[in-house]
């Protein structure tokens, strides 16, 4: 029951915010209060059940359309829980980061909370149809958040996002329905191991599912929707777009494609790993060429998501553990960087790398934490990303040396462009006299970025905090894929 409550409580929050009188300060406070509830509940779940997630008190099967084998089945499993927790944290942070939004604030928060319900649901669902419904529930709110509150390029960006991901998920649904019909149930645990399907059938069904999920990740060359929508979104939408949304794709790979169609995905795995390596290199080079800060971080995201694909493609315990962990670490660092870029842009009026410079003297906190985010992003030891990236490369190299080696080069690229960016943006002389008088991060902004920075360090030193939770689920996948952990 607690799982259901935690999933849907933002919906009550949306209702509450919608019914409040239209006073921006009250709405902001109420939204923050609402966002705190799932965060507290998720933390409670972590501390109370962290050791045996998936145990009785957390899974629920309330029946639904039983004649078709479709059920309201939710539960916390090790694969999704890290992201569930992160969703709660990032929704809270996104509310803090939306302080500068002044138009139609109420509607913005309603959409944000509805999107959160969808995200929660994806990470917690244990039924294919339910998974798909939650997956699509994020689509309209995110479309509107970009399309209404984004910058001047928002409409084409939002449209592209909608069409790409809609086509992707329609493809995925076709695979889901085929799997459910042939398997006789839509329950994820009931279908585990392929539900007696022949290898040929599994391979055929895996194709549309993988394709749909790879659009969401997005894997190059299916990434066409990502750049415009990342760069034209408001900051707090960016937090969810980059922090959570791509993981709806990766969690689908981890929770549906691999365990439910182990024989079907096996032939695709080397290609998934190769796509991962391509993502890493493509994202790295493209990031290097960017003149806009947000574009740079967006391309670096494409690169980082490549490591997740590499780890998933590896299909071994190290790689998968790295991938599951990297979902979380990427969410933390990309949100941190996007929020701080938002702060920079709000103060200086520009996101152009060439027009910024010397910010660390004027805004030591924001710029300092930007450096923390940058160092974390390039995978410096001591930060969480180092651990997860290292694990995916290890796993990838072990399974497919070429793909692993190519991806490893991406770490080098990351170091180059992040150092270059930091040198130009926060160090060096102040390029514009107008920057002399700008203010450092406000207390609200600090409340959003300090916890994220700390979390990067905490998980960097104690990755076991999450690996412990996800390990059993990863072992199950490895066993299903026929490997030994």
């Amino acid at each position, binding site marked *: 029951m607690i799982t259901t409550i935690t999933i849907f409580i933002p919906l009550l929050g949306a209702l509450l915010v919608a019914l409040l009188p239209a006073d921006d300060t009250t709405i902001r406070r109420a939204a923050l209060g609402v966002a705190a509830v799932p965060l507290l509940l998720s933390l409670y779940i972590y501390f109370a059940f962290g050791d045996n997630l998936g145990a009785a008190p957390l899974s629920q099967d309330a029946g639904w359309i039983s004649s078709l084998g479709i059920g309201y089945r939710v539960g916390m499993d090790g694969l999704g829980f890290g992201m569930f927790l992160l969703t709660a944290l990032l929704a809270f942070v996104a509310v803090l980061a939306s302080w500068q939004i002044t138009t139609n604030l109420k509607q913005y928060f309603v959409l944000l909370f509805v999107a959160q319900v969808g995200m929660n649901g994806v990470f917690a669902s244990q039924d294919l149809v339910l998974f798909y419904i939650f997956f699509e*529930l994020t689509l309209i709110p995110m479309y509107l958040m970009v399309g209404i509150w984004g910058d001047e390029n928002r409409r084409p960006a939002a449209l592209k996002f909608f069409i790409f991901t809609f086509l992707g998920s329609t493809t995925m649904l076709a695979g889901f329905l085929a799997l459910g019909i042939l398997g006789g149930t839509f329950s994820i645990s009931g279908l585990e191991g392929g539900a007696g399907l022949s290898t040929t059938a599994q391979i055929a069904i895996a194709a549309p599912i993988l394709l749909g999920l790879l659009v969401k990740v997005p894997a190059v060359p299916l990434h066409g929707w990502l750049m415009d929508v990342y760069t034209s979104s408001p900051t707090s939408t960016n937090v969810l777009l980059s922090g959570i949304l791509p993981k709806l794709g990766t969690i689908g790979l981890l929770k549906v494609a691999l365990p439910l169609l182990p024989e079907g995905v096996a032939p695709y795995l080397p290609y998934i790993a190769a796509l991962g390596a391509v993502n890493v290199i493509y994202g790295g080079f493209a990031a290097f060429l960017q003149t806009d800060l947000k574009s740079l971080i967006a391309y670096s995201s494409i690169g980082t998501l490549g490591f997740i694909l590499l780890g998933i493609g590896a299909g071994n315990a190290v790689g998968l553990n790295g991938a599951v962990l990297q979902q979380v670490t990427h969410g933390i660092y990309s949100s941190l960087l996007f929020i701080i870029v938002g702060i920079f842009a709000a103060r200086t009026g520009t996101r152009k790398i060439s027009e910024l410079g010397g910010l660390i003297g004027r805004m030591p906190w924001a710029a300092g934490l930007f450096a923390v985010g940058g160092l974390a992003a390039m995978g410096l030891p001591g930060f969480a990303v180092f651990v997860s990236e290292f694990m995916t490369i290890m796993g990838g190299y072990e399974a497919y040396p070429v793909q692993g080696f190519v991806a490893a080069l991406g770490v080098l690229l990351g170091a180059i462009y992040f150092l270059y960016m930091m040198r130009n943006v926060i160090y060096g002389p102040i390029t514009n006299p107008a920057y002399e008088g700008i203010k450092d991060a406000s207390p609200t902004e600090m409340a959003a970025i300090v916890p994220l920075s700390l979390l990067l360090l905490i998980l960097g030193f104690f990755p076991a905090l999450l690996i412990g939770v996800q390990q059993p689920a990863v072992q199950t996948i490895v066993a299903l894929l026929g490997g030994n952990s």
Partner: protein
Amino acid sequence: MDGLVTAQSIVALLPELIVCVFLVVTLLTGVFAESQGAKSLASGLAPFGVVAAFVATVALLASGFSGSFFGDGFVIDPFALYIKLVVLGAAFFSMLAATRFASRTNGDGPEYAVLMLSVVFGALLLVSMRDLFGLFLALELATIPSYALVAFDRRRAESAEGGMKYLVTGVIASAVLLYGIVLLYGFAGSAAFSDIAAAYSEGLTPVGMLGLALLVSGFAFKLSAAPFHFWTPDAYQGAPTSAAAFLSVAPKAATFAALLRILVEAMPAATAVWTALVGVLAILTMFTGNLLALRQTSVRRMLAYSSVAHSGYILAAIAAVQGANTNLGVQAVLIYVTAYAVMNLGAFFVVDVVGEDFKLYNGLFRTRPMLAVAMGVFMAALVGLPPFSGFFGKMWVILAGAQSGSVLVYVVVGAVVVNSVISLPYYFAVFRNMFLEEPVSDGPKTDDGAMVFSIYAMAVLTVVFVVFVGLLATVTGGAGLG
């Protein structure tokens, strides 16, 4: 003959009798009413009649009442009762939404209500008929008043034009249908479904085939299935919006049910033939409706073509009804019809308030946020986006088709998926205009409480469908035919 009219048969006819009584009362009050107030009162009676009939139908369904009456010509089973509930529910909200229009028509309100009640009366009878001639009469009883409903708005030339087109094509359809019925009568020597089924089981003769083909063609006209759909946009364009909403849902649901009953109960031995016929019609109808809807500049015409497309989806569900798959296929039809009723009525009601031009929807989210959200819900549902009602309709059709084991039906199901994608741009255009564009005016005025209530009720039903779909699945799961 003795024993035809019994207490049982009266109970079986209870919903129809209630509607009939209200029809007569409304008609008489309308005729004798002098003042505007009395006329409003008369037209206000109709929704109560529908509610009373709804309650009676629920009682019949809940008590497990079933059986066949009047020499097996009239049957009460869960299938019939369920469709009656959909028809009555849709009629109720259409009548509520029509009150504003009725009050504008200079005292013709009672007539409008009488026509709607006549359509309801015909539709209720239609779903219970197990005899071809009775079925034809019930179908005409539902159709003839609907010509008048389309042409009701006499001040607009296009209303008369729409009514005229509808009348002419409708009469041809009736002739085709009747010819088919006569051939089937000649083929079986009886108009009873059971005798026709027996005749088919002895072999498919040319007369039997031709009768079947003409019967399905006649129904295709009435259901605006391509290539017999061309009256649809003009009729819906010309009709008062509440009538267009009502006609696109209530009599259509009953006509689909009647077609399904004939095919399943009277022609099980010819399944392969009608599956092919209905499957091809479904594919044609989906593509025609969606491709033509893409080109529309009026939201109302767009919805008219979209209703053609949705007829195609329902025909796809009918094509999936065969053999061991019958129950699932019938269930798909019932769920789809229910889902379609709530989302399509809502969309038409919003068009009644906002207007036809796509530009009128610009910035509706700024000027009338709740109305825009409601219309957004209807558009998303018509596309088939979860968690709204339309998604479950399409999902059932796809699941039923995928389990049919027939290659042709697999192709039909493929066409359903492809068409869902084709339909995205035109529904999405309304959505985008409402939420992302700047408003062009202060927004539409709606001071009509009944209309606003109907719109929000449909929006709520479209959204909570996801919660109650399990219950609907249970109810419709036991409502199989045959």
